[in-house]
């Protein structure tokens, strides 16, 4: 499988989404959030997704991280049919192949920054003595090395967001899905995160999808896609 995956990365898209639809059923009526979304993302790319609030950006990202199943359509990542995975394989997929930054920049409460970053490593089976180094490196990338033993409850909004980004990086995933990772950051920090993203994808194997409302951030990405009324447009 891994051989297949790497050959696909060289030849074509890392992410290939075709005719993806998502309909929510809230019990009263059906809410069609995504219509026939088609998306290809190549290794080394940073794709920005923009769109008005409620247009389905988070929904798309949840589907890409397989936190949510689409109503129809197909989704391949590195040649692998992601939607056909069973529950354990899904968990494996989440811990090895994607890193996720939530819009609400969720951190584990009553835990330190270190513990927050440790969990992905625990689940991935990384040896305990190898963890501190990787955690420190990930935190360094978001300029938070000095907060490593801070309690997550005492971080500022921007710091929480940066810890969430560091947590998505720590397992060195193939795909990083970031839902407004710069929403609470000032320009300097926002741009510095984008610089780090650029550095990460420069290895030519990783791809990053960033949801953002900030045109300046979008301008720094490789490509920008727009969601409007559930339809994805390339710009």
């Amino acid at each position, binding site marked *: 499988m891994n051989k297949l995956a790497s050959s696909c990365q060289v030849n074509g898209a890392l992410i290939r989404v075709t005719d993806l639809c998502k309909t929510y059923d809230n019990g009263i009526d059906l809410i069609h959030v995504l219509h026939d979304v088609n998306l290809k993302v190549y290794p080394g790319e940073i794709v920005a997704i923009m769109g008005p609030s409620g247009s389905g950006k988070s929904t798309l990202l*949840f589907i890409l*991280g397989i*936190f*949510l199943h689409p109503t129809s359509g197909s989704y391949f990542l590195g040649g692998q049919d992601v939607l056909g995975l069973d*529950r*354990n394989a899904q*968990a*494996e997929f*989440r*811990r*090895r192949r994607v890193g*996720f930054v*939530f819009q609400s920049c*969720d*951190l*584990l*409460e*009553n835990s330190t920054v270190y*513990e927050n970053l440790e*969990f*992905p490593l*625990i*689940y*991935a*089976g990384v040896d*305990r003595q190898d963890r501190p180094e990787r955690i420190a490196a990930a935190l360094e990338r978001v300029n938070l090395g000095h907060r490593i033993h801070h309690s997550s409850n005492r971080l500022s909004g921007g710091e929480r967001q940066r810890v969430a980004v560091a*947590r998505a990086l720590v*397992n060195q995933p193939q795909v990083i899905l970031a839902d407004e990772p710069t929403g609470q950051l000032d320009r300097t920090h926002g741009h510095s995160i984008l610089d780090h993203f650029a550095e990460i994808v420069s290895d030519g194997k990783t791809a990053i999808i960033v949801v953002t409302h900030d045109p300046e951030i979008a301008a720094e990405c490789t490509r920008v896609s727009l969601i409007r009324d559930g339809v994805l447009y390339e710009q």
Partner: protein
Amino acid sequence: MRLNDLMRVSLRQVMRHRRRYTGVVLAIALGVAGFLNIVTMSREVKKNFNENLDLIGGVTILRIYFDNQRSYRPQWFREQTLAALKRLDGVKELSLTAVKYSQTNFQGRHFAFTTMAVDEGFWQVRNFWPLTGKLFGLDAVTGHKREVVLGAELAKKIFGDTHVRGKDLEINQEIYLVSGVLGGVTDSGLANSVFLPLTTAEDRFPGRLLADRLYLRCATWDDVTAVAAAIPGIVKSCQSPEELHVEGSWEALKRVQLLAWWIEFLIYLATSATFLLGGVGIWNVMMAAVTSRTREIGLKKAMGAEDRDILAQFLSEALCLSVGAALLGAGLGRIMMEFLSYIIESRPPENLFFFGVTLAFLFAVVIGVGAGLYPSIRASRMEVVTAIRYE
């Protein structure tokens, strides 16, 4: 997820939310402590009861005798029979006695009475104490001394008083020293008797003295029936059991046993109730934790936790609680046990304590798994997106 990570994470979680768990842990710990003390101390307490409460003390005494009036060949208890009976399980102590009728002349008046020739253990076995003076002991028996103890009524009849220590009494034309007057007697036959060392009576009484009565005290009232049933066989293995009779206070024994059964039952009930409450408490606390930690579960799943990682974490937290509580309970129980042992001056065998601790830990694991399983399964089955979007 590795075991040491699991343990570390769960312990950390429990320690950080310890306030939420204090009530449950204390409840289980108390249950464990109570349970341990029932297991270890109930026999000691019963023994103590039997020794100290004259009221129910009587039910543990068996009277064993040969009815020599109905036999052509008079029988008495032999050394080896006594030794064999003493070795019997549940027998605490025994006392050998013989009975003879005697008379005295005191200041011109004539008195006839029963003399009981007894060994030094008699007072202890029958729960008697001196009303005045003292009851003769081992030295009088081994020394074949001419000492007597009087029943209170007889003392009054002869001397008009119960303070008669040091006075002389003539029995069968020999002079005996009165050492005390017997208390704790309700039976008027005994209150009108004279007690003297068995050895002395064997030496001095005319005719043959048959030590044909035995008083036997069992360790607890639970032993009485078994001991009574075993006696004829044991006597038979040593000597002829012809006209052997075993008497006990069967009615009183039944009542005492019933009472004790109820008390024990209620204690067990209370203990299992604490255990049950502890279980319900763990269930409740874990259910609440699953709900209030929905986002945490979603986050961990988003970070790649499998269902079984989440299950293992919640289950091991429940186990941490119950086993931790059992540990605390074992400590508490030990302290209680030491204290009780100190008070009643008798301590249970150490392995009984370890048996109780093992049992309590087994219970704790069963409770932890039993009450923690359903909440943990619920947590592990949660869908990531519902957990993430949960407010």
